[in-house]
């Protein structure tokens, strides 16, 4: 019945459009090129171009006003601050150019709409103008390129200075595992060929490697604030991507090789929860979740902010739900937590 109604409505709409165009056509009988724009078409569409310009501005303003607050809160990592700054400057440039060019384009479309008898200006080239709008992008982009490259080199320079914490992020369909290098801060060797499900050696760690015995394998990532972390990423099956948006960090996990990323967390989870933007976000979200709870729907428990690690490279059916919680805490809390965890050697011996 519903299908029939929808079909009926569609048919009626089609008939209405057809009739409307018939009326338009009847009013234009007698001209050879009745399907070529005439002065009236130019006038209407000229005005519409102007309206469209207003629409572009309106949707920009609307999006900023309504959705601007949805953006990620301030960066929670050391390099994230310079990332955000570069981003801000880039956006300033983009919006300036966007504002100017869209005005020119649509305003010219409106201003110079065709009229019978109007003479267009034969204006084929002008070296000076073209030079100006070549050289301005060249200079602007040179600046952005240099700044971007400087920051990039800085972020990607992964070294062992400042005693970094070494952590392995291990990806598989469809979950994450983290491995801490333990007291020696050296990860034991590992390969998928050494995976032994019966002995719960799910990461394929080399049991004979002495460096491996103090490694700690966990399902929740704890990081001490202010200490550099060097991540080593591995994947056992397909491509995954370790995406930590709050830290402006991302690196793919590639089967057959180890990739790396490094950052220093600067804001603890507790502090981030007190960030005014985050408080607002949590309030808004919990309002939605309360509505859901009232309607008796699932997925309606109140939410508390946490950093999160997402998979950001299509990896299969449950790609959309491959995540791990990240907790940034004070050094002492972290030390206390890591001391409570079982080492790889302990796990192995408990199995045997």
């Amino acid at each position: 019945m519903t299908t029939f109604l929808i079909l009926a409505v569609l048919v009626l709409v089609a008939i209405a459009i057809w009739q409307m165009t018939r009326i338009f056509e009847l009013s234009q009988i007698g001209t050879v090129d009745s399907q070529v724009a005439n002065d009236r078409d130019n006038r209407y569409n000229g005005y519409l171009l102007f309206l469209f310009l207003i629409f572009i501005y309106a949707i920009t303003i609307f999006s900023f006003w309504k959705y601007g607050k949805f953006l990620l809160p301030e960066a929670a990592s050391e390099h994230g601050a310079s990332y955000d700054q570069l981003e801000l400057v880039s956006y300033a440039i983009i919006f300036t150019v966007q504002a100017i060019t869209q005005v020119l384009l649509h305003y010219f479309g409106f201003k110079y709409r065709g009229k019978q008898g109007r003479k267009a200006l034969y204006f084929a080239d002008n070296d000076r103008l073209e030079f100006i709008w070549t050289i301005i992008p060249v200079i602007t982009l040179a600046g952005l390129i240099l700044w971007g490259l400087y920051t990039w080199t800085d972020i990607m320079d992964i070294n062992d200075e400042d005693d970094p914490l070494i952590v392995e992020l291990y990806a598989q369909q469809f979950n994450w595992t983290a491995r801490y290098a333990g007291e020696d801060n050296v990860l034991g060797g590992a390969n998928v060929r050494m995976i032994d499900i019966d002995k719960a050696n799910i990461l394929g760690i080399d049991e004979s490697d002495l460096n491996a015995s103090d490694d700690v394998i966990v399902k929740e990532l704890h990081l001490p604030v202010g200490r550099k972390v060097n991540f080593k990423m591995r994947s056992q099956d397909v491509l995954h991507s370790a995406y930590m948006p709050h830290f402006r960090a991302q690196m793919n996990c590639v089967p057959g090789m180890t990739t790396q990323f490094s950052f220093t967390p600067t804001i603890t989870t507790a502090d981030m929860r007190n960030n005014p933007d985050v408080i607002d976000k949590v309030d808004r979200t919990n309002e939605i979740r309360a509505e859901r709870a009232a309607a008796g729907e699932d997925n309606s428990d109140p939410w508390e902010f946490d950093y999160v690690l997402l998979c950001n490279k299509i990896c299969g059916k449950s790609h959309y739900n491959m995540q791990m919680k990240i907790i940034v805490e004070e050094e002492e809390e972290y030390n206390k937590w890591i001391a409570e965890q079982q080492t790889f050697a302990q796990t192995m011996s408990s199995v045997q």
Partner: protein
Amino acid sequence: MSATAHAHIEDHADDHGHHHKETFVTKYIFSQDHKMISKQYLITGLIMGTIGIAMSLMFRMQLAWPGESFPIFEALLGDWAPNGVMDADIYLALVTIHGTIMVFFVLTAGLSGTFSNLLIPLQIGARDMASGFLNMVSYWLFFLSSIIMVSSLFVEAGPANAGWTIYPPLSALPMAQSGSGMGMTLWLVSMAIFIASSLLGSLNYIVTVINLRTKGMSMTRLPLTIWAFFVTAIIGVVSFPVLLSAALLLIMDRSFGTSFFLSDIFIQGEVLHYQGGSPVLFEHLFWFLGHPEVYIVILPAMGIVSEIMATNARKPIFGYRAMIASIIAIAFLSTIVWGHHMFVTGMNPFLGSVFTFTTLLIAIPSAVKSFNWITTLWKGNLQLNPAMLFSIGLVSTFITGGLTGIILGDSTLDINVHDTYFVVAHFHLVMGISALYGLFAGVYHWFPKMFEGKMMNKNLGYIHFWITAVCAYGVFFPMHFVGMAGVPRRYYENTAFPMFDELTDVQVLMTVFALVAGLAQLVFLYNFISSMFYGKKGSKNPWKANTLEWTAPQEHMHGNWPGAIPHVHRWAYDYSKTDENGEYIIPGQDFVPQNIPMKDDEEELHH
């Protein structure tokens, strides 16, 4: 141009007199006539486009109302939507096939194939393509690859669903994902055939442009459409073979146990034998085509728009030589920027720096083109036909979408928006919507040339343009914000992360705009089909254009022109040109077609 080529043309010119007897099969099916082949490309492309857009509407509905049951899902997806709720695997399949169809089958074959075939011979003054037979083979290979791609939708385990980029190991291992079995095999076979088709087409375009230009048609008198098609064909010849090698190596990994892209894999409880390959290698091979591909898609649209804009502004295109230079610069740079898709793949960060540099350089010729188009409008006498509106629309979306490329092309800024909705918004505006606008502009403008003088209804054209233009921004502008909030693309639903809860509203808004935009395309389809049969015949040169195709008779004939091929005496953009007294060169007419000889006292006012 060489003397032999001239001789060849003259030869052919004398030769046209006798007509072959045409049967239904040689005229409409296995036709070797470029005009018919272009129509075949267009109609196949539009059918594929309808499928591709319908798929996008379905997955947009899933994104806006996750887990909701829709009767239409059950009707169209069958077992893939139990009780009308879309399955996660088929969601990924829809995303994958939507991307594949739109990029390759609609915007490469449907756009470049249609208009290169239609316009190259007609605008350079040739009787047909260099090889009509290869041209026919090219179309039929394209048709075959379309059939195989569509048939993969009916495979029991589902079509390919590893994303249109089909990165291994996901695409190589049937145990990683259901679509990586038969569905992916068909995808690869279809694309291999598609590449063969594209290469045959491109070689033909290149040879035709170089050898078959009529007398007087020097390279610097070519309309910008031809320049764009010519350069596009060259990029295609350079980069498509690399995709073929990627596809072949992937077929070997999948079927013959080689390890080009696979290494150290443990899946479903067992270690696989693969050793020593690298998925990163596949990414390099894929994007060596994949990136030029977006220019293969957008350059023809740019050429079409340049031509339509000049004609409808009644002005020469501003900076003709700069436009050619920027087409060539974009084409050159496009082949050395592929790494910007791979900043965070584990590729050496130094390479990332190099690719950032080359990528941001592309902004320069792109900026030149945009400013030149805007200047072309300045002080014009704009005839706002539907084709002209779509051309202005292209410049608008190209700028909006292109500017965010400055964020994505910067390796630093890419880290946090890589693979999020920000990317989706960027490329849909800059190459998806823009190229579609180019396609629509071309169809409205050259419809009379394709269908023997019949014209499309302009009022339906206006309805089509305005709804589409508003909806395109309505879908893709807010999408940037979803990306900047950190939402990854290709998520079946965003409910697993409370931090994305509040973004569902944005998804609903985008989906409503998308559905309305989809309905507006029905107006276009109706207009297209009804005009094909009942369209009003316009005059021979309805848009008062300068290029040679409008000197050919409306009725299609083998060889395009009865009698001799027109010679060319001037460039294609003498619109509103006046002499010293301010009078038009041809009194009472604001355009001078290319086949009109220069007047005695007339000067070339451009360089």
